[in-house]
């Protein structure tokens, strides 16, 4: 039975595509391109070599912005969770920064880094940094006190305690945070590319509209964004299935 678990979602997607096709074919005034036109659009992008180029450009920016955020936000968040005083001092400021959409930073990003990869990477970094910090901080705070007590009972130094108890104990929660932040990063890259650069999937969408109302290419860009987002999320999810991590997810 489980073997065919992919079947219902596939059928549902197929129904959606068919409905889309019928709706597009019957429109009096063209307001949406049909699936066939979109597919041809993707083919056209591939022939021009733009498909690979734009996908690589977007993924490149997300990778750098996201990894920079991971490398800085996770240690920072763990530190805030571990040291209550630091959290009390810094958390209010973080809470003020948090509701500011990363898109609000676009003008500043361009001012500082000019139009180009750096500005986009900076925006993605900003977009992932705070959510990652918060999830690392909360992960530490949610560690049952019992684990830390048991750890210190066996004579671990604070450093050993961090490596042998804190770090493994937060890992499952951290993975959830990493997954959510990657989703945010992927959404932000599209917006950043509409304004701050001249390549990538976001640029494709805005450029196709501006240069001749090519809505088939606009929707092609959207479909590609969705498909790659799904792949990224599936990759992150597969980490959660590691045997040594499953305890955090199982119903036990």
């Amino acid at each position, binding site marked *: 039975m489980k073997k065919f678990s992919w079947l219902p979602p596939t059928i549902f997607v197929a129904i959606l595509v068919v409905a889309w096709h019928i709706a597009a074919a019957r429109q009096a005034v063209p307001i949406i391109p049909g699936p066939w036109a979109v597919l041809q659009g993707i083919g056209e992008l591939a022939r021009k070599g733009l498909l690979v180029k734009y996908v690589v450009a977007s993924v490149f920016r997300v990778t750098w912005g996201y990894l920079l955020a991971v490398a800085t936000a996770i240690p920072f968040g763990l530190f805030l969770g571990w040291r209550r005083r630091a959290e009390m001092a810094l958390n209010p400021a973080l809470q003020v920064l948090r509701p500011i959409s990363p898109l609000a930073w676009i003008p500043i990003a361009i001012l500082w880094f000019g139009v180009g990869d750096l500005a986009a990477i900076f925006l993605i970094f900003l977009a992932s940094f705070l959510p990652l910090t918060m999830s690392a901080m909360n992960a530490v705070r949610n560690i049952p006190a019992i*684990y830390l007590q048991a750890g*210190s009972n066996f004579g671990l130094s604070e450093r050993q305690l961090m490596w042998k108890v804190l770090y493994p104990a937060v890992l499952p929660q951290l993975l959830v945070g990493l997954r959510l932040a990657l989703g945010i990063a992927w959404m932000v890259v599209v917006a950043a590319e509409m304004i701050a650069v001249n390549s990538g999937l976001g640029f494709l969408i805005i450029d196709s509209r501006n240069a001749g109302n090519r809505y088939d290419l606009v929707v092609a860009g959207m479909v590609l964004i969705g498909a790659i987002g799904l792949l990224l999320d599936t990759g992150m999810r597969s980490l959660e299935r590691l045997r040594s991590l499953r305890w955090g997810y199982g119903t036990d």
Partner: protein
Amino acid sequence: MAHTLSAATARAVKTAITTKVSLDGLSIVFRRDGSAVEVLDRISLEVREGEFVCILGPSGCGKSTLLNIVAGFLQPSSGQAWIDGEAVRGPDPRRIFVFQERGVFPWLTVEGNIGFGLFKLSREEKAERIAHYVQLVGLEGFERAYPHELSGGMKQRLEVARAFAVNPDMLFLDEPFGSLDSITRLGMRKELLRIWELERKTILFVTHDIEEAVQLADRVVVLSSRPARIRRIVEIDIPHPRDISAPRYLELRDGIFEEIGLAHQV
């Protein structure tokens, strides 16, 4: 006169040697939202080396708090706990606290958990120690299993094994079998007694189960409800294995039931 004095001195020396734990007027007051809750009221107790002492009291009376103070996780508001003549200042690997099965690390396998406290040993010694305790608590075949793949009873045995593996001279057990079903619980008591008779650690065992206390302990310390005071200390003078239908057992058990103010009738 000289004779009695020397006898008293001899007794004092003997007590000094064999006393493991000495609690001297432990009190603790928790302050919450401006109001003070008195939890422990001048608890004084001596525990001998190798003795199995049960601390018995109603839920919420503060017996776990008492155990946490003796283990060094909490500081008393007044009074002092002494172990081996030293004031307790914090947790110590010579004395391991066993939680109700929730203390095993879910990210480590059975082997990893038992070996957790053995980081100072060489690889061979560590493997040997782990194998020994896996066998002692009957977890052979589950060395590579993670805690979420084990039953409640197995997890509890795992935690006991992890504690014994570091060869502590004392164990604190906080209602360790509380979340197990009654059949598993009986098996676990037997198991604990078997290991205790082999290794003779000093054990402080907190429970709210009168039967459990009388089955296990050399002495049962009966606490009052909050703020906890020692109501009575009952010596259980029955050798192991104990016949739980013997008149002496029933007499001791019913004595405690009465002490707590419960008629032994449902």
